[in-house]
């Protein structure tokens, strides 16, 4: 029995073992993996990067815990990037479990900055992130299409007060902010058809510069909108989140996840290639009349 026969009659438990080792090791050991950047994600970063101090953007957090793994990292990174650059952020959600998501993002970042003056390695010198000054959270309202249309008229129409019950007019950063016209861009993190509503109503009616971060499954369906220029950027799935983390130089869960995925995939592909080599070699020998056992 030579090596190729061995490959062909290989106990699958070796595959299990090597996969488990690869996953656990890559999980525990935070080494660097190259992440290739796609243009559609890079254009999101470039827009964010070109924002100046005092600019305002709208982050729409339209997912629930089911899509947390894929989209949460993006929200964290983009929110943090804006805070760092002193860009004002309006948070809103059109998913009824999205409030918990936004709460978590805001709490994690502000608490960390308050206690240690850092967040994920970024140092905030003598600064705190304050509700009403650095960000505002509008909260949740049902019927996404209606809410988007109403916000295009004025944020105060669907959201007379913010999530915490403060009237929008008495919030410092909302002074002089009426609707999307004052926002430099809208970024929508979406799991579900809300993404299409933003395209139809947000971009279609009010021509807002729109970018999307969607789940991996939805990614493929969104490319047509990118080609037609209805959205200026697209980050799909864990891969998109990891690219954003890399671009913003703020590595977190998405890059961790990507590392494991990447090596697990490579391992599986290697096994497939090995199987094929073994298969071809043994088949050729069979054709030549060799002894195959």
């Amino acid at each position, binding site marked *: 029995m030579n090596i190729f026969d061995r490959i062909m009659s290989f106990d699958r438990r070796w595959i*299990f073992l090597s996969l*488990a080792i690869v*996953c656990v090791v890559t*999980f525990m050991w935070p080494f660097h993996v190259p992440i290739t950047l796609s243009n559609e994600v890079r254009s999101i970063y470039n827009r964010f990067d070109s924002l100046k101090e005092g600019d305002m953007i709208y982050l729409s957090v339209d997912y629930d815990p089911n899509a947390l793994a894929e989209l949460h990292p993006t929200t964290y990174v983009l929110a943090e990037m804006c805070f760092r650059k002193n860009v004002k952020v309006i948070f809103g959600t059109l998913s009824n479990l999205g409030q918990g998501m936004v709460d978590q993002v805001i709490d994690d970042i502000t608490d960390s900055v308050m206690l240690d003056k850092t967040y994920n390695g970024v140092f905030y010198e003598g600064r705190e992130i304050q509700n009403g000054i650095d960000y505002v959270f509008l909260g949740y309202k049902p019927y996404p299409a209606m809410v988007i249309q109403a916000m295009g008229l004025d944020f105060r129409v669907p959201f007379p007060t913010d999530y915490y019950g403060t009237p929008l007019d008495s919030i410092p950063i909302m002074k002089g902010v009426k609707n999307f016209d004052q926002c430099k861009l809208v970024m929508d993190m979406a799991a579900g058809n809300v993404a299409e509503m933003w395209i139809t109503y947000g971009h279609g009616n009010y021509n807002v510069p729109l970018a999307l971060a969607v789940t*991996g499954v939805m990614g493929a369906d969104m*490319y*047509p909108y990118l*080609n037609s220029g209805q959205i200026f950027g697209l980050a799909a*799935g864990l891969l998109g989140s990891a690219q954003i983390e890399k671009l913003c130089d703020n590595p977190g869960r998405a890059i961790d996840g990507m590392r494991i*995925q990447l090596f697990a995939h490579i391992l599986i592909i290697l096994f497939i290639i090995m199987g094929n080599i073994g298969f071809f070699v043994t088949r050729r020998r069979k054709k030549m009349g060799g002894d195959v056992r």
Partner: protein
Amino acid sequence: MTWETFLWTTLGAFLTLCTFSFLYKDNPFYKFAEHLVVGVSAGYFALVLYHQILIPNVFDKIFDGEWWYIIPALLGIMMWTRFSRKYSWISRWPIALYMGIASGMAVPREMHARVIEQMHSAMINIIDMNNIMGNSFFDTASGIAKLIVFIGTLSALFYFFFSKEHKGFFKGISQFGIWILMIGFGASFGYTVMGRISLFVQRIQVMRDWTVVAWADEASGAFAVFWIITFGVFAIWAVFEIRKYLRSKRSTA
């Protein structure tokens, strides 16, 4: 962490390991976890149905004056005639009713949801798209891509003809159909790999979190004991396995 939560989460962690041991081979730990989960989940499900359907949808309704709910309750009780050999034919009535409703529901609804809707989206206009050739070779919005989808759908449908021998022209087209099917299957398979790996990563995370929390707290002594016992048990088992393996190898040699 309190002792109480420690014990519960440790039970969960232990059962997780027991289930993973199945990857090596069938063994007493897996057998234990398997039999336990079958019993407990069946009991759980029974109670869910009791509390969420039987009480509110049957008893409460009947006692609130919606007496006609006695009819389905009686039909349900007829199912119990299966316990008797002599009267078990009565249980055919509720079964017949169930099958009748299910089939009747399926006919128009499946015709609509599967056949009509898909037919509607299969017929696409490839001409009025302003990019027939597309921006690039792999542009999914181009007229050519749409034409491939249309032809692919029809040829795959040809593959499903049962009363016609696949010969001549028919063979060619259904052959193309099965190519399309296979590429589709390969694509879905490759696409699913990513999600499945993350399921395992989630389990690693759960185990890690449990370890971190358990170590960090007053129950850490008990935690160490747990690990020692668990690993001890698994190690003894492994030793037995290896001995068995060596013995079998010697006997074959």
